[in-house]
Every structure is written in structure tokens, then in C-alpha cells.
């Protein structure tokens, strides 16, 4: 095998380890977190502090009865949970997790796919996520599932616009679609200790991005597609066993990818001022990955915190927020950032 292929496989392995570990860890964090917020104990029987609850749940999922409802559209019904993982397992390829390192005399950029289209590719792949929800809802032969799917498609299209526009505003001062260049542009400091992260000049865009990210991942307060008080469980009502688990994992991995994107766009990505990124390549890669994962973890905790603190929006409120508040804000932010960039301020 050529050196390039081995390097790419290595980078993929590093990312996949992080992503696949996300679901069981988040399962524990979410349940203990919700218990903490609601003044309950949460799962505390399996292992110390209930840490092995995720493992127990995985075993349980494997042994549950696998049901395909009568009248279901079988091919689409089986395809939907697989598609739920596709955007989650592909979008991370354009997110860098370290600088260019030297391995055995050859330069290796710590990004799986260092392509010029960069973040555009990520947005394109992420936009395919809605198909899994729509297929699941349509094929289940269940009115609650169908309603969930209709809501999902309307919601994801509406919030994708605001999300994309806020991302574009970050790219204008950088002048590139590449996320490694976005990270490189954030490595300075103000007054010697305040990191020059994009979140300061792009605060409006960041807020729009964050709200849209909640809607894109169908998390409370925007979990209308699966609103359990009205739709049982929305698009995945009829799914059981590992098929349900795939939707579950897909949701957490999408959260992780969007958190990684938020960290990279607005909070300096893998870079942290004060950390020395020199030395042997494995050590540098480990440091970059650790910093990025720490930033992702902060966002994930925020996701959990918000979920158990806010009530669900009504669907008309969701649509109004998306089209009448977030979209104008994102456009205003885009024009302002473009003007400031041309004026030479940013």
C-alpha cells in the first residue's frame, strides 16, 4: 500500500474512534445530565456511577425483537436507518484535527480530505441527512411517522439556509472554503492571552449557527419531528432493536459533527494558544485531537443542558423563528461581515 493510503486510513481511524465512542458516552451523559437537572439519580446500577449503562443498552438493543410493520414499504423501511449514519459518518472528513506534521520525512496534513471545496462538501453531505428521516416516516405506514417526516423536511430546509449563510460569513474574511485555513486564521491572540477566535467578530453568526444546529439535529427545543407528546416518537415510531439504535447513533454523531464544525469555525478548532504543537507527529496529532475533542465535549454538554432546560416550540413558532428572525439576522451578518472585510477591518 502506498504511503498516502496508509496515512488516510490512519486519519480515518482516529476520527472514527472518536465518533463511535460518542454514542455510548453521550447516552450516559444525557441520562445522568437530565437526572442532575431534574434532581433525580439517573442510571447508577451498572458499573461505577452507572458508567456501563451504555454497554448494557447496546446488548439490550441487539436482543430486542426486530419488527417490520405490516404494510410497510420494506426496501425504504430497511434503507432509512442505514442512511441515517451516512452523513454522520462522512461529513467529518473535511474537519482538520491538527497541523501539517512530518511523518518519516513526508508532510501529512491532519485532515482526512484536504479538498478545496472543504466546508461546502460538509454542508452538501449534511443536507442528505433529511432523506433518512423522510424515508423512515414515509415507509412506516403510520400517520405519526408520516407527520414527523413532513415536519422534518420542512424544518431542515428552513434552517439549512440560516446555517449555511452563517458559515459563509466566517469564510469571507478567510477567503477560502478550507477549514484548515479557517483554523490557521484564528491562531493569533489579542493582548497576548485572549485567543483571536472568530466568535468575537462573528457573534451574530455564531448565535444563528448554534440555533440552526439545534434545529438541524432535531434536538429540543426543536425536536418537532419526534415530539413524543403528540407524535409518539415521530419518524422512528415503528423502529425497534438495532434499527432504532442506528437512528439514535446517527443523532449523536450528527451532534458531534456539528459541534466539531462550530468549534472549528468559531473557537479555533484543534488549536489552543499556549500549547506547543511541535515534536514527534503522533504527539502533535494527539494534542490536536484532544483539544478538538475537548471543545466538542463542551458543545455536547451544552446540547444536553439546553435539552433539559427548554420546553418545545410550537411548529408555527419554529417556522417563524427560522424565516423571520434567523434568516434576516444571517443575511444582515453576511452583509456586515462582507462590508467590514472589504473595508479592511477584519
Amino acid at each position: 500500500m502506498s504511503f498516502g493510503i496508509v496515512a488516510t486510513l490512519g486519519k480515518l481511524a482516529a476520527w472514527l474512534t472518536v465518533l463511535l465512542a460518542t454514542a455510548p458516552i453521550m447516552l450516559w451523559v444525557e441520562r445522568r445530565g437530565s437526572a442532575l437537572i431534574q434532581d433525580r439519580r439517573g442510571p447508577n446500577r451498572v458499573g461505577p456511577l452507572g458508567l456501563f449503562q451504555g454497554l448494557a443498552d447496546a446488548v439490550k438493543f441487539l436482543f430486542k425483537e426486530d419488527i417490520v410493520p405490516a404494510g410497510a414499504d420494506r426496501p425504504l423501511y430497511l434503507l432509512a436507518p442505514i442512511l441515517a449514519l451516512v452523513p454522520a459518518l462522512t461529513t467529518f472528513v473535511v474537519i482538520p484535527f491538527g497541523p501539517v506534521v512530518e511523518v518519516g520525512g513526508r508532510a501529512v496534513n491532519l485532515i482526512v480530505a484536504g479538498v478545496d471545496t472543504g466546508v461546502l462538501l460538509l454542508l452538501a453531505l449534511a443536507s442528505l441527512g433529511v432523506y433518512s428521516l423522510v424515508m423512515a416516516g414515509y415507509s412506516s405506514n403510520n400517520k405519526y411517522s408520516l407527520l414527523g417526516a413532513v415536519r422534518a423536511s420542512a424544518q431542515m430546509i428552513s434552517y439549512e439556509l440560516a446555517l449555511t449563510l452563517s458559515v459563509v460569513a466566517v469564510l469571507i474574511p478567510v477567503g477560502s472554503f478550507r477549514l484548515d485555513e479557517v483554523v490557521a486564521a484564528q491562531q493569533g491572540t489579542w493582548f497576548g492571552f485572549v485567543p483571536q477566535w472568530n466568535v468575537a467578530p462573528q457573534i451574530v453568526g455564531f448565535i444563528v449557527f448554534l440555533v440552526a444546529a439545534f434545529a438541524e439535529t432535531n434536538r429540543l427545543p426543536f425536536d418537532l419531528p419526534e415530539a413524543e407528546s403528540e407524535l409518539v416518537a415521530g419518524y422512528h415510531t415503528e423502529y425497534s432493536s438495532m434499527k432504532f439504535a442506528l437512528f439514535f447513533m446517527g443523532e449523536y454523531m450528527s451532534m458531534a459533527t456539528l459541534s466539531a464544525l462550530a468549534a472549528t469555525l468559531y473557537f479555533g478548532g484543534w488549536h489552543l494558544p499556549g500549547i506547543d504543537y511541535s515534536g514527534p507527529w503522533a504527539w502533535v496529532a494527539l494534542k490536536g485531537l484532544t483539544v478538538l475533542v475537548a471543545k466538542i465535549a463542551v458543545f455536547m454538554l451544552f446540547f444536553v443542558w439546553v435539552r433539559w432546560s427548554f420546553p418545545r416550540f410550537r411548529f408555527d413558532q419554529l417556522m417563524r423563528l427560522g424565516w423571520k428572525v434567523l434568516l434576516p439576522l444571517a443575511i444582515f451578518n453576511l452583509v456586515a461581515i462582507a462590508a467590514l472585510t472589504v473595508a479592511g477591518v477584519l
Partner: protein
Amino acid sequence: MAVFALFAFLAVASAMVVVTHRNPVYSVMSLVVTLISLAVMFVLLGAPFLAALQVLVYTGAILVLFLFVIMLLNIEREAPGGGHKLQKLGAALAALVFAGLLATWFVAAQGAVEPVPLDAEAVALVPLARHLFSTYLLPFEIVGVLLLAAVIAATALARRGGTSVGEDEA
């Protein structure tokens, strides 16, 4: 070459499914496969930007709207044997004529046209953007206005029939 063959086959096969399948949801899903295969073609031709836009705009937005409308209107499967006999005959004739034209053109073009490699400069991001916002600025803006007009017209048409929905508490 193997990649091209695979995705060319996928594009053509899924395009066939789009027009032949009786269930509109399957047709849209096949169209998704067609468009993604075409995006792969763009990448092979050295235009990854175009490929990303194709996936983002067509499969990510427009086809989702198609699906949304199909599910909202609850369009059923097309009944088998639909369509007039003459209609079928006409369609078959038109397909034959089209295939004949394509074949003639293909045979005539063999050897007559030298394949030219795509100029990498022409599809790179910066030159593309520069052309779009200087040489082709007027057509670009006209297309934008046209699309806006189409949206307004569609809204007006949709609102004329039936009771209009309240502005604020929709």
C-alpha cells in the same frame, strides 16, 4: 475509468427508474441517485466545486421539496395500464426518433471531434467566481430576478384558490 463506468451505469439505471416506477417516492429517490452520480462525474472532470453545489442545491434542497409536496398531497401509486394507446405509441415513436438522432450524431462524431481536456483554470474557484461576477454579472442577476418572479407568481397562484391562510397565526 472503473469509477466512471460504475457511476455512469448508476446514473442511467436510476434515471430509467425515475420515469418507469409507479411510486412517485421511489422516482424521487432514484433521481437523488442520478444527481449524486452526476456529481461524481463532475469530480472526475475536475470540477469538485460544481459537484458540491449540485449535491447541496439539487439533492439537498430541491428534491427534498419534491418529496415534501408528494407526501403533503398524499399522491398515490400510479395505477398500472394508465395512459391512452395512442399516447403510448407516440411516446415510443418519439423515443425511437431521439435514439436515432443520438446514434447518428455519435457515429458522425467518431474521429471528427478531438476530445479536449478540460482547462483546470476554467473550473477553479477563483476564476469561476470572477467570471460570474464580472463577465456574466448581468445574466446572473437576471436569472436571480427571474427565479424571484417565479416564486412570487407561485405564491400568488397558490393563494388565489381556496381560503387564504392568516398572515401571522398560520
